[in-house]
């Protein structure tokens, strides 16, 4: 089967600053990929490159085997996209925006659109500029999914939404998964949503892809070891195989290991004679903090 997305050796910078360096990413049909990284890590830049809104400095982007810069219309028709800052025309009414999308997307499904219109209780006659932030994003989501896209790209879908609206976003994406098995790429800072949705996790850090792994492997293949500070030098911990990062947090050393908690406890005792190490599984939130916040 052809990969939905293939990114190779992607390089992109702005004004001499490298944002993405030699990044590669392949996404197969039916995968749900959660894209993580700190603000400014390059998530939005990657998404804009995939959408063909930016040109790479080097490297290639293929969506459905096509170059989004060469075949923008063919690619865009098969993608649903909600940008971080949605640029819907402010002066248009909701109804007019829907008309526009209906004309642009030959596969537009009226029934699906009506269903969401009713579910979100959107005022068709109101101008985009008069909608709440949540409502405007709902319009954007409706427009992104009503042509039943093969690939749905959501950049920070939860940004600025209250918990109820966020949950509606999540459920709408899940309905789409149920109905069409759409491939989804989404960036988010809400780790709970990532855990609920993603089958795979990609974390970008310092221009590189740092983690790229099935979600379930991350949950069971990584752990956090807490060791009393002074029991062993940080550098000694870091030198251990499978140790990803170490940082001092008050009275303890925090170390993330790419192994499960039980075997980590055993290894620390065997290799360093540490009997007081407490190893435990990490939530995604903790993992993100430990890895991305390690220089803090």
């Amino acid at each position, binding site marked *: 089967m052809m990969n939905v997305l293939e990114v190779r050796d992607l390089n992109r910078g702005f004004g001499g600053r490298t944002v993405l360096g030699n990044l590669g990413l392949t996404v197969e049909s039916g995968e749900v990929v959660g894209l993580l990284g700190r603000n400014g890590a390059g998530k939005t830049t990657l998404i804009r490159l995939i959408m063909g809104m930016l040109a790479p400095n080097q490297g290639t982007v293929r969506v459905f085997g096509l170059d989004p810069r060469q075949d923008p219309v063919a690619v865009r028709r098969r993608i649903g996209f909600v940008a971080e800052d949605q640029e819907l025309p402010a002066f248009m009414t909701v109804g007019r925006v829907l008309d526009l999308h209906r004309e642009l997307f030959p596969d537009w499904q009226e029934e699906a659109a009506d269903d969401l219109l009713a579910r979100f209780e959107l005022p068709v006659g109101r101008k985009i500029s008069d909608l709440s932030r949540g409502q405007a994003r709902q319009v954007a989501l409706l427009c992104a999914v009503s042509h039943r896209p093969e690939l749905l790209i959501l950049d920070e879908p939860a940004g600025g939404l209250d918990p109820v609206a966020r949950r509606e976003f999540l459920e709408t994406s899940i309905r789409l998964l149920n109905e069409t098995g759409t491939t989804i790429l989404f960036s988010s800072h809400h780790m709970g949503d990532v855990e609920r949705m993603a089958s795979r996790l990609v974390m970008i850090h310092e221009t590189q892809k740092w983690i790229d792994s099935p979600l379930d492997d991350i949950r*069971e293949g990584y752990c956090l070891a807490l060791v009393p500070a002074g029991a062993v030098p940080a550098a000694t911990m870091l030198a251990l195989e499978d140790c990803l990062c170490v940082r001092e947090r008050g009275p303890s050393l925090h170390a993330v290991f790419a192994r499960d908690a039980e075997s980590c406890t055993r290894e620390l005792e065997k290799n360093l004679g540490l009997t007081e190490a407490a190893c435990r599984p990490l939530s995604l939130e903790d993992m993100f903090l430990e890895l991305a916040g390690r220089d803090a």
Partner: protein
Amino acid sequence: MLFYVDPGSGVPIFRQLMDQVRTHVAGGVLKPGDEMPSIRSLSVPLGVNPMTISKAYNLLVHEGVLERRPGLPLVVAEHDAGDLADRRREQLRASLAPAAQMAYRMGVEPLEAEALFRELLAAAAAEEDE
């Protein structure tokens, strides 16, 4: 609803679901032949990727807890009283293991730990009676 998920818990969601099905079966809430909710009907209210539920169901079929019938909903598999007792023990063992490790680490005497467990059992029974 029979199921819930807690994303922040450190336990993968498919394992949370598997545990809940096993506990319901071991406790007799789900009986042999009971139909399981479809993946679609669970995924939206739980707010979970349907593939995650599918993974949990498949593993439970593999374990013999659930049974697949062509073209029909999944059902709870037939099991005898012995199976049920085994499952109950397995479920309990899994939730007691961390407590046992903690007791060992803190140097709690086995008799003291046993007494504590009996006390908690009695408290649970009393709570149920209220």
